[in-house]
């Protein structure tokens, strides 16, 4: 929401979703045990190796955060693919979702009964 909660903004909620995912990643914290401190790997790499080629790097690769809207590429790559800003990308994503996303529908019988309740209320309140 913007303006202290007066106005809803579609793109804002899509951005908030991205931020929420980052916050959840932080809230999960840092695991500390022999498997994650990797003292033996650190000794093996020493001062002149790198960690890219280690089995452990491959094994834990997918534990890294993966934003979908925030663009972590270098500036030239970002510009080459249009150089759009975060708000623009979030707006596009919001329009795409609203147009294409199909949630599991209600059972038709359930829907019929729900509609009946609402229609009855409209009649009872004299607004039908």
């Amino acid at each position, binding site marked *: 929401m913007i303006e202290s909660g007066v106005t809803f903004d579609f793109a804002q909620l899509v951005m908030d979703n991205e931020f929420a995912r980052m916050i959840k990643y932080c809230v999960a914290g*840092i*695991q*500390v045990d022999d498997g994650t401190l990797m*003292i033996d790997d*650190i000794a093996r790499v020493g001062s002149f190796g790198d960690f890219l080629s280690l089995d*452990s790097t491959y094994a*834990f690769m997918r534990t890294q955060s993966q934003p979908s809207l925030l663009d972590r590429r270098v500036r030239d790559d970002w510009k080459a693919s249009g150089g759009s800003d975060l708000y623009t990308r979030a707006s596009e994503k919001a329009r795409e979702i609203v147009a294409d996303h199909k949630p599991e529908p209600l059972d038709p019988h359930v829907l019929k009964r729900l509609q009946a309740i609402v229609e009855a209320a409209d009649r009872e309140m004299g607004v039908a």
Partner: protein
Amino acid sequence: MKRNPHAGRQRSGGLSLNVFTQDELHDIHLGTLEVLERTGVWIEDDEPLDIYADGGCSVDRSTHIVKIPPHIVEDAIRSAPAKVIHHGRDPKNDLVLEAGRVSFCNFDEGIMVIDPDSGEHRKPTLKDVADIARLVDALSDIDTYESAVGAADVPGETQCLHNTLAALQNTTKHCGSEAVSAYHARKLIEMGAVVAGSEEAFHERPMISMGVCPVSPLKLTRDCTEVIIETARHRLNDTILSMALSGASAPVTLGGTLVVHNAEVLAGLTLAQLTERGAPVIYGSSTAAMDLRFATAAVGSPELALISAGATQLARQYRLPSYIAGA
């Protein structure tokens, strides 16, 4: 209704982040000590090799690997002061740094700038350095100035001196500088003495401090050790800041990354304390993760937030002032 006073009660008195328990901090500390003792760090230059050797470390002159016994590291942590002051040219801008006190400065150091008038993305000039220092001087909650950008329109060999000159002219807040050798550190000290009025007055209230970065994993190059030694001898605040990257120059796991990071900072801190016991050192982190999909440093990432919070807690555990990256 009477509400009589409570007997002594605990109040939080503020909000803080606790990433690790005491046990976890201890595990990271012990892991770090093991790395420093058994794996060691590579030291390029002879002078620091001598200092480490004289201090009781095991030094291999052929490989340049220094192995530091745990008791020397722990003694160094204890001998570094828990409180340091970043003096400003104007005393009203003096800033106390100690574990738990939160302050802010600008990010250090950009190699490009967005032109404030045209919006153009371009190389920084000396005018930008001056303008940013003036901006920092005016902003009430940016407590100190750190070398925000490096001027590309001055000679590279003396760039850090030009940057500092422009900063000193435009802010009375403390100026963090990037010395790249002992020579540059001495020139910055000479400049500070002129501003203060004398070398003694500068040492009394140094308005300049310096910062160095080890090279991950586990290397302290000549530029880094020269500045550590020079600042320690002059008892100038020196920020020792690791820039390890998870998955590339440090383990992919954040716990392992913090071990490599911590080993590098403590190796530098030990050098400072062996050079001059009690020299002020600030525990620094710009450690982040490499996004393995793009091979870029993920600076504005949840990993950086976690690493920064973890590094801050390590510094706090060591009772050292810290200088930690935002995003």
